[in-house]
């Protein structure tokens, strides 16, 4: 960093020596760079400002004017519940798999093919969400129906699997699993980077002391990567919270607030509700949808900032 500064100064000194004052080209170019930086900040501020200004009428409107005749809070609460529930399932399913995949790539697979395996995991992130949605409803959903039936019969005493099991697979559990596949590459990429950076003196030291590979992983790699895994999981959670199309297509919604993961009656999510209702809405209903978008924006912002704080603290140490 300081190196850059000294070269900058040297360059400016030279420029000053030869030209008297800073050249026109330099002034134009550096201003352009600053303008780009400010534009990006203005764009982000614009996102917040326009969502607030267009969402605001819904906060103050009477319940009777809003969709479903509820006050805004009663309208958004079940949606927020559904959003958090679907994302929680996704995180619970994805994080252990992502950690395992990262460990496999960094410490178990032959180093020669590790790069290719990592690329395959990353490919999961490249697939558009609309395709995950179609795959979820035409392939995974039908395939999951017998499993959902089995869960209802054997584990029906747990409220999560109370049933009645859906005959189409359009359930919260299937939606959560598809979200899990979608966030797995993000979580795994961050875990992979951290695991690969475990100091060799630790891993080799553990093995020199007679640790098996698993003991070496448990005692050196996992503790070393812990905070990265936590922040990666939170970034993944943030992605799942805002994911729209897969949930829109897969989930069969009834507006019910329920922890029942395998039935046909599910709460919708904020994002899916916008995608479903926005094209056919007008007037105050649009304002209400934009206001729910603002709530979603706030939830993901808090999640992401918490994740960044974990990363920042770790870099600091």
């Amino acid at each position: 960093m300081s190196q850059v500064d000294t070269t900058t100064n040297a360059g400016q000194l030279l420029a000053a020596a030869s030209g008297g004052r800073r050249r026109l080209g330099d002034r134009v170019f550096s201003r352009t760079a600053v303008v780009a930086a400010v534009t990006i900040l203005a764009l982000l501020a614009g996102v917040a400002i326009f969502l607030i200004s267009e969402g605001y009428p819904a906060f103050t409107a009477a319940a009777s004017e809003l969709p479903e005749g509820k006050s805004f809070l009663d309208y958004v609460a079940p949606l927020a519940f559904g959003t958090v529930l679907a994302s929680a399932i996704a995180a619970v399913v994805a994080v252990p798999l992502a950690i395992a995949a990262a460990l496999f790539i960094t410490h178990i697979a032959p180093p020669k093919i590790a790069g290719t395996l990592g690329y395959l995991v990353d490919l999961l992130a490249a697939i558009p969400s609309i395709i995950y949605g179609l795959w979820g409803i035409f392939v995974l959903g039908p395939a999951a129906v017998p499993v959902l039936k089995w869960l209802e019969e054997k584990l029906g005493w747990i409220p999560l699997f109370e049933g009645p099991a859906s005959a189409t697979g359009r359930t919260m559990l299937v939606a959560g699993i598809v979200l899990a596949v979608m966030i797995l590459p993000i979580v795994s990429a961050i875990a992979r980077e951290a695991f690969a950076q475990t100091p060799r003196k630790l891993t080799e030291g553990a093995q020199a002391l007679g640790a098996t590979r698993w003991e070496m992983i448990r005692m050196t790699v996992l503790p070393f990567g812990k905070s990265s895994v936590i922040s990666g999981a939170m970034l993944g959670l943030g992605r799942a919270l805002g994911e729209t199309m897969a949930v829109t297509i897969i989930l069969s919604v009834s507006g019910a607030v329920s922890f029942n993961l395998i039935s046909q009656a599910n709460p919708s999510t904020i994002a899916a509700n916008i995608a479903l209702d926005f094209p056919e809405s007008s007037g105050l209903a649009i304002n209400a949808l934009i206001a729910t978008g603002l709530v979603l924006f706030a939830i993901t912002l808090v999640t992401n900032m918490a994740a960044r704080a974990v990363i920042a603290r770790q870099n600091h140490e």
Partner: protein
Amino acid sequence: MESATVTDSPALARPSSLLASGAGWRRRAKDRLMTVLIAGAFALAMIPLISLVYEVTKRGIPGLSLDFFTEDARGVVGEGGGASHAIVGTLVITGVAALISVPIGIMGAIYLNEYGQGRLRRALTFFVDVMTGIPSIVAGLFAYALFEVFFGPGIRLGVMGSVALSVLMIPIVIRSAEEVLKIVPNHLREAAYALGTPKWKTIVKVVLPTAFAGLVTGVMIAIARIVGETAPLLVTTGVVDSMNSDPFHGRMQNLAVYAYNEYRSPGVFKQAAYDKAWAAALTLIAIVMLLNVAARLVYRRYKTEIR
């Protein structure tokens, strides 16, 4: 690179297995078990990828025909018709988004890496991170709210979709561009300064050419990430059956929204509509994969060797 090499070397592996013998069979058994579990979890994570590519290919091919690429869907009920309007729309919307995002993103990265200091630099770094977390549907709502203020409610334009996609694309471009600018060695800049080259000329003639392959790769990956977006376009560009290549006038179709719409409103001829939805999905996946592979090739072929 990885410490796995340690276990691969028999000379090093032997002492540990010696120590582990005797009462250590339990530990070795656990080691085996965990290795199998971890490998199994990796295999499990790969099943969706394989299934997805297989199913999209299998179900997408029946819907692909010459008509799919040359006809639009105006007045088409059931079989026939195509998605040319959606393909053109995808190109226009994505192209305009790239025109907005690439200059802003790369100049922003130049600011961060070459000029930035103090509070503005810290704010930009932080808020670019924040921007990467914006849900795509929220970006769409923003574009709608922005244009609604100026053009009134119910507005739908191709360029609105481009603005929404730019919100998603700019942070990706700026992040990757910053990474490649960072690895341009300082001695190149210093050499240019020593020859009396002004700073802006050093950036344009030395720094950017050195980083060129990385910049192009980053832009291609960013385009691949946004080309398949559906949600933000659903609320900004709308749905339409006929060709429209003017981003500033009227609704515009795109491939992802086309696939969603064929699935959601299949009409009477369900299978024909589903075939078209899958064909659009296959086309989309092919575009994304091509961009990803091309990005890798560009990087390998044109990267500047830095010593």
